[in-house]
């Protein structure tokens, strides 16, 4: 709880630092706040707010783990953002503030214990994102991204609300515990089921899984790259946290049909994401689609929920997150310096920009799931879970689709080293070099020591 307060205050501070022309302060303070939040979370100093919360939010282990990953990834995003936004941009601090608010929303989301908080958390998470997506005012792409995100987001919100209300109608409360109790008392009603379905639809939308994926590629493509990185990593963690919690909540009452729904969604998502990206020429869009595909992969973990599921999901999201933040930041660097945004344009990057290319190759191979990089284990644990739960065919489909995915990443890595053309040296600040190296180290270390990471996460 005090993490939320801390972060909220940090956001406000960042706004005021903008107002009082102290932009320099914003980022260090925010990073400091994040680190201290991490410390608080990891040490469990969360304060005792039970008197106030009356079971609105609950900071159990689940919430803490997800919050930790959220904050951890946010640190990377902010460092990347520092490099992405030039100092003199208007509203820099406001943008940072919005990011922070959105993170607050995320943490609320993963710690929700009451459908009201689910709703509010979703909104607090999303509304800043709508704004940030459109925050690049003069670029039509950004406007379009913002509009699409906003419209479809609020459209989805309507369904979410309807769902929540129906559940409320069924059991006369928003509190998960009470609802569970009354379910055991009264049993399931079609009101409840319909409500759950609508809420799941909203979740699927937020996760940009088929059939509610349409916004994702366009928004990812149009929005400022930092936001894209943020949406495809941090937000996903938050939403998965909430979804997992929700599934646990309805878990006892889920039968065949949930599984069938999820399987359909999973297969459709993986195949869509991977196949469509085969023809993709724009690098950023490619990453967007790969994000969609990865969501499909992670959803597999929800088919067989056990006490390890959350750590597997987190591991995958962490691995995927770092790799994709790395990839997005590299994309942004190349785009801002040379204006290249196509895959073919990357030809011959290796010639003069060794570090960039090597880190990109690491990211790509992590995506492609090449052992022993993080991405491999991210996929591996989920496959193990699925196979142990008897979803052999699903895992075979997953494997085949990930071969298709591998094609895309190999395409990129193959183009990097081609001799035909060259890209001039791209200037990079020391901070950024450190950032790249740090990302590579994370990818490798998380991969080589999966046990320790799981230990932290589970």
């Amino acid at each position, binding site marked *: 709880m005090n993490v939320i307060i801390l972060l909220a205050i940090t956001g406000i501070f960042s706004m005021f630092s903008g107002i009082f022309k102290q932009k320099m302060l914003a980022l260090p303070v925010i990073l400091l706040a994040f680190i201290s939040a991490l410390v608080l979370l990891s040490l469990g100093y969360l304060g005792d707010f039970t008197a106030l919360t009356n079971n609105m939010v609950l900071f159990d282990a689940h919430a803490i783990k997800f919050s930790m990953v959220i904050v951890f990834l946010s640190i990377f995003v902010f460092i990347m953002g520092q490099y992405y936004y030039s100092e003199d941009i208007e509203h820099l601090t406001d943008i940072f503030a919005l990011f922070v608010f959105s993170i607050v929303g995320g943490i609320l989301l993963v710690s929700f214990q009451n459908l*009201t908080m689910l709703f509010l958390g979703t909104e607090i998470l999303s*509304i800043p994102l709508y704004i940030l997506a459109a925050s690049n005012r003069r670029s*039509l792409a950004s406007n379009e*991204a913002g*509009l*699409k995100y*906003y419209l479809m987001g609020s459209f989805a919100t309507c369904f979410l609300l309807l769902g929540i209300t129906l559940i409320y109608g069924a059991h006369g*409360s*928003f509190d998960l515990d009470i609802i569970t109790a009354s379910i055991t008392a009264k049993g399931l009603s079609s009101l409840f089921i319909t409500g759950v379905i609508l809420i799941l639809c909203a979740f699927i939308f937020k996760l940009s899984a088929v059939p509610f994926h349409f916004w994702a590629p366009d928004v990812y493509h149009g929005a400022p790259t930092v936001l894209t990185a943020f949406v495809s990593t941090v937000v996903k963690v938050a939403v998965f946290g909430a979804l997992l919690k929700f599934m646990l909540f309805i878990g006892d009452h889920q039968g065949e049909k949930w599984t069938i729904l999820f399987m359909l969604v999973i297969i459709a998502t993986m195949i869509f994401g991977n196949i469509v990206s085969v023809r993709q020429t724009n690098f950023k869009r490619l990453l967007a689609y790969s994000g969609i595909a990865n969501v499909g992969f992670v959803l597999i973990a929800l088919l067989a929920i056990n006490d390890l599921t959350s750590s597997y999901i987190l591991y995958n999201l962490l691995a995927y997150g770092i790799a994709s933040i790395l990839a997005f930041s590299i994309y942004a660097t190349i785009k801002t310096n040379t204006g290249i945004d196509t895959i073919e344009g990357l030809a011959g990057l290796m010639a003069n920009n060794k570090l960039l290319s090597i880190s990109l190759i690491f990211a790509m191979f992590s995506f492609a799931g090449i052992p022993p990089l993080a991405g491999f284990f991210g996929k591996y644990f989920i496959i193990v879970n699925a196979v142990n739960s008897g979803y052999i065919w699903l895992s075979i489909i997953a494997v085949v689709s990930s071969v298709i995915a591998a094609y895309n990443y190999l395409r990129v890595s193959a183009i990097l080293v081609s001799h035909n053309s060259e890209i001039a040296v791209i200037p990079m600040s020391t901070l950024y070099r450190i950032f790249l190296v740090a990302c590579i180290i994370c990818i490798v270390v998380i991969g080589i020591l999966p046990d320790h990471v799981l230990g932290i996460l589970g």
Partner: protein
Amino acid sequence: MNNMAGLQDQLRLVPLEHYVFLCIVLFCIGMTGVLLRRNLINVFLSIELMLNSVNLLAVAFSVYHNDPNGQAFVFFVMVVAAAEVAVGLAMLVMIYRNVRTVDINALNQLKW
């Protein structure tokens, strides 16, 4: 005041289903509006209508459950609605500045 009470006593008779299905109808009308208008303003309006129907549903449920939480929830729905609308309209104005139209399909350069 007592006639008010009497009014209430009679009003109680309307069964809940009516409210539920009315809300569903309103919700669907709103959705239809979202689907069939290209004018951004109308789309916003339709979304407002959907939210409203949900509000009505929540209130109805809260009354029939004798539970104030539902009505409290409606407050938050309003809050969110207000915030969303504010953001949305601001975005609309900005976009209108750039493209001089409120057609939602005016912006479709991001595709495939």
